[in-house]
């Protein structure tokens, strides 16, 4: 994936950006407000896409997906949601990018997913504290931490299962394209 041209990169980011938005929208629709879960907490299925793109294109790609998600949140849910999405996404992507450097040796996608979810929640909580001017809100973090542990494991586990299949599709396309151009 390193030597792909800019057209490929734009298309790759476009497809994955759209996928992230659709996943975010789907979880918003499908998952009702379950009483014992922290309010406002979501599984963060679109973080699967962010992790995948960061893994295959580096931190720049992941940040692009974050910007796309924040722009979409700005249009559909307003400035507050956008700021929370952006701050959570930025922290999460940077943390994921750092841990991905040690993937296979120290961490698997599960651990990286947990840290990504944690940083995402932490970033959003920081924005909530900042906008409301109340640092005491950080006490809500203990609920979000448990939730991040679960959702991070789910998203990381999903990516572990999906990755071999996606790579197989990618390599098939690469072979076919080589056949056409060669």
């Amino acid at each position: 994936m390193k030597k792909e041209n800019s057209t490929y990169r734009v298309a790759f980011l476009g497809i994955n950006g759209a996928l992230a938005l659709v996943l975010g929208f789907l979880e918003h629709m499908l998952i009702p407000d379950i009483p014992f879960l922290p309010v406002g907490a979501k599984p963060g299925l679109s973080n699967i896409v962010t992790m995948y793109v960061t893994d295959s294109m580096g931190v720049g790609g992941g940040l692009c997906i974050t910007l796309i998600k924040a722009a979409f949140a700005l249009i559909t849910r307003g400035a507050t949601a956008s700021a929370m999405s952006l701050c959570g996404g930025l922290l999460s992507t940077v943390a994921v990018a750092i841990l991905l450097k040690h993937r296979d040796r120290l961490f698997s996608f599960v651990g990286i997913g947990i840290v990504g979810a944690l940083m995402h929640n932490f970033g959003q909580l920081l924005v909530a504290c900042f906008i409301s001017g109340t640092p005491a809100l950080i006490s809500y973090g203990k609920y979000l931490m448990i939730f991040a542990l679960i959702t991070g494991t789910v998203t990381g586990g999903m990516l572990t299962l999906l990755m071999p299949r996606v790579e197989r599709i990618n390599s098939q396309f690469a072979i076919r394209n080589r056949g056409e151009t060669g």
Partner: protein
Amino acid sequence: MSTDKKLTKTLKKGDLFIIVTVIAITLVWFLAPFSGREDNLKLVIYLDGEAVETAQLSTLTEGKSFYVGGCEIYADSEGVKFVSSVCSDSLCVKRGTMTRAGDTMACVPERVVVSLKGGSSTHIETY
């Protein structure tokens, strides 16, 4: 069940470290006595980070409604809750009633924060 085996096999040392650390921090956070005494709770409502309403929860035996920002907040001696908010998602209303010291909830779009504090304030007033 081959995928299950593969999943557990993929867990690395770093993952276990992360999981254990997160569980440990969460446990400490839940058990830590940050919250102070549970009796004599004080209600503080903030707008834009400034305390605009305060009340001793034990004195609100008949219940009282506060209107701050676009939010209606109801408090009685049992606890406090958001009744309504003009914001679109109304997550604050869904959170329900808070009853414990240290509990905080917010309507972020309206910049309204409701916090319950432990009863240390009387201590300060008596010097």
